[in-house]
């Protein structure tokens, strides 16, 4: 995989209207009689040229070892061939790219986006030029008695454009410095709302954030800097946001596809986005959602209340609890095994997509469970998984 993310213009689609060249604030775009091209030495991936392009030709990116020169680009009649590895770019900011690569590593590394996913906008805002959002809501979504404090945070972007797709993440960096007087590191959070906002046509998004407060061996409690910063935000507070990030873990747009969603804890965030999206477009196709969702108790399961109101026709849900008084511990993989024949039937269908999101280790448990489902259902799960990955139908993001 190449080290440089190069911005290119597709000469087959470009109509040489000059919009990009006129829009570029730093003069990175130029042209000859044949093509409009981007000078890799100047372009800083600010994305200003992307939205005004009338053709979509300007939104092409390649990972390359050595950038194509302007002279090479002038001579093209089409773009050099691309592979998913060379053309989908999760983030231009290395800090965010590293975090996403790490989150995808255990699911098999860089994946391919679902065929019918909409084209994501990536990295419109970076550390140097963040979008400023206003907090318009901060609600606890685990019960007051539960130990775990998980919050539903709503960030409104006002007049600032911040287009996201279900499955993408945003970056938040806590203000201030760490103990070594360096700026804090960026954290990524999955967007928990659909693309058109908490209510249709609002310019906001939701996050699902768990307050990190972990008992240490010495009896002290470790308070996560970023999560506590976010969970303590008040209505009206302003937050600097980067992103959006992520170009592969995206919801398929085709309303006929079935989607199997497996998560634990705040891994539910993207699936709340998926579910709300489907709820809004349900009339367009027959696709169903399947949710396997694990938590210790119903009181600690984020969105337990709202989930009770989602109709079964839209969402088949299996909520699984590992700490119910007087009952054996049950995990999502156990419940998946119980629904084996139905899952086997679902997975054999060529349009089914699988998404995993949650804590590290979820992949292994799910793989074990689906291996058994496959054995009884007449397919080899590792083989099917590889095929699904290659078709953009298997995605995992864990942390």
């Amino acid at each position: 995989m190449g080290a440089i993310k190069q911005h290119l213009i597709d000469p087959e689609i470009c109509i040489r209207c000059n919009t990009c060249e006129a829009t570029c604030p730093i003069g990175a775009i130029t042209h000859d009689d044949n093509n409009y091209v981007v000078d890799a030495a100047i372009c800083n991936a600010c994305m200003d040229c992307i939205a005004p392009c009338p053709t979509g030709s300007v939104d092409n990116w390649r990972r390359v070892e050595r950038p194509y020169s302007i002279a090479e680009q002038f001579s093209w009649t089409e773009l050099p061939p691309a592979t998913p590895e060379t053309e989908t770019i999760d983030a231009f900011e290395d800090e965010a790219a590293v975090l996403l690569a790490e989150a995808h590593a255990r699911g098999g590394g860089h994946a391919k986006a679902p065929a019918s996913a909409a084209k994501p906008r990536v990295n419109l805002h970076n550390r140097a030029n963040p979008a400023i959002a206003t907090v318009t809501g901060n609600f606890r979504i685990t019960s007051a008695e539960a130990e775990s404090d998980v919050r539903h945070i709503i960030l409104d972007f006002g007049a600032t454009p911040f287009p996201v797709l279900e499955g993408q993440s945003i970056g938040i960096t806590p203000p201030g410095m760490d103990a070594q007087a360096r700026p804090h590191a960026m954290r990524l959070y999955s967007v928990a709302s659909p693309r058109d906002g908490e209510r249709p046509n609002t310019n906001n998004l939701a996050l699902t954030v768990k307050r990190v407060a972990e008992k240490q061996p010495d009896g002290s409690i470790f308070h996560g800097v970023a999560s506590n910063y976010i969970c303590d935000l008040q209505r009206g507070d302003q937050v600097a946001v980067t992103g959006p990030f992520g170009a592969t873990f995206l919801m398929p747009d085709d309303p006929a596809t079935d989607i199997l969603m497996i998560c634990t804890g705040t891994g539910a965030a993207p699936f709340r986005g998926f579910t709300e999206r489907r709820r809004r477009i349900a009339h367009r196709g027959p696709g169903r959602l399947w949710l396997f969702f694990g938590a210790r108790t119903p009181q600690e399961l984020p969105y337990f209340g709202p989930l009770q109101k989602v109709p079964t026709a839209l969402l088949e849900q299996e909520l699984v609890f590992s700490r119910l008084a007087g009952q054996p511990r049950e995990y999502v993989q156990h419940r998946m095994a119980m629904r084996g024949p139905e899952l086997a039937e679902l997975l054999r269908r060529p349009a089914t997509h699988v998404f995993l999101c949650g804590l590290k280790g979820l992949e292994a448990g799910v793989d074990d469970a689906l291996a058994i489902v496959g054995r009884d259902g007449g397919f080899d799960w590792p083989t099917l998984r590889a095929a699904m990955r290659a078709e953009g139908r298997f995605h995992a993001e864990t942390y």
Partner: protein
Amino acid sequence: MPDGMDVDYDGLIPNNVGLAQDARVRKALETWHPGYIDWWKDMGPEGFQESLVYLRTAVSVDPKGWAKFGYVRMPEYKWGVLLAPAVEGRRIGFGAHKGEPAWQEVPGEYRAMLRRLLVIQGDTEPASVEQQRHLGATAPSLYDMRNLFQVNVEEGRHLWAMVYLLQKYFGTQGREEAEDLLRRRSGDADTPRMLGAFNEATPDWLSFFMFTFFTDRDGKMQLEALAQSGFDPLSRTCRFMLTEEAHHMFVGETGVGRIVERTVEAMKEAGIEDPTDVERVRALGVIDLPTIQRKLNLHFSLTLDLFGNEISTNAANAFNAGLKGRYREDKLEDDHQLISSTYPVLRLRDGKTVREDVPALSALNMRLRDDYVADCQGGIGRWNKPIEKAGYAFRLDLPAVTFNRKIGEFAGFDSDPARLPTDDDHAFIDSLMRPVTEGGKYASWIAAPKVGIDGKPGEFEYVRIHG
């Protein structure tokens, strides 16, 4: 956010020109608004006013987010007044006032000239909507139908842009001109639109694509020249309009390109080696290349007439006054006043065409036309790609600029009807104009686009016809 980037989206008229604080202009525009909506309902796309169309709306002049996509009923489209952000310390770039600060108010001495420029530009915008109003009924796909409607609503917004300038800067006269823009009708015997090409019918989709490629490209050249204007509000208006105009170029260039692509593909499949074997090609339900060439000849020549006379004192005056520059004046390297330079112009001398050097100032129309022809040539090259690739010897080409002209030096000089579309051509094209309204499906004579609008997948329902 820099000054002038904030768009007020709350009122009746979205704008970044401070209408909320400008009661006089706001009232004038709000008074004009009902007449505009009536005009749109009378003369806008026929039969689809209630349909939900997946449209791009300009909601900001910040490039990161200026476009928003969503389903909209066209009469509810947010037509706004949007100017590109002001450039601090901008100076007049050409003409007698070169180097002076750009005007924020109309200079009294150029009032009449400027008003005329605005009215002529403004008149073309509603005209094309009128010309295209019947096309929705025969769209070759929902994708194409959506693109047509996008072009239409943006032409509507461009009318708004010109009307704002008239209302804001020209008082009572401006208001009357704004009313007249809604009163004239394309092709009407009594109250026609001002320019010839905007009174021609756009009877079919090949005409529509040719029109958006050739005639809207004239619009682009005019806007480029006006974007250089020393009258800063006009410059900023036109700079923003250009980002929308680019979409029209896209619709035209890819529209014809997809027709050519489909024709070539069908000929290949059928094993036809001679692209001029019109009968066999037409039997395949695709448009033969010679017919496409004839349509091209017609639209190119009609559009050249829009550039006016080769030698023009009006153009010289507008340049000298600093109101209308040359194409990308700011990228040219000369004195920007054209005091002693010359420009080669094609003239008719004793029945022959010759190039003659004339004072550059009087040849500005010619120069813009030459830039236009070069800009067209780029697109023709793309249209020829699939023909070349398939190994056919046929090439589409621009006719000579002297062909089929009604205005200027070459009016009546070379008018060979065999190189223009015939009644038979039009009857054949008409026979293909049958609507295709299933998502992801295309008429037999046009290829699917390479990418969807807003990254949408192939079967996306760009228009929900019944709302």
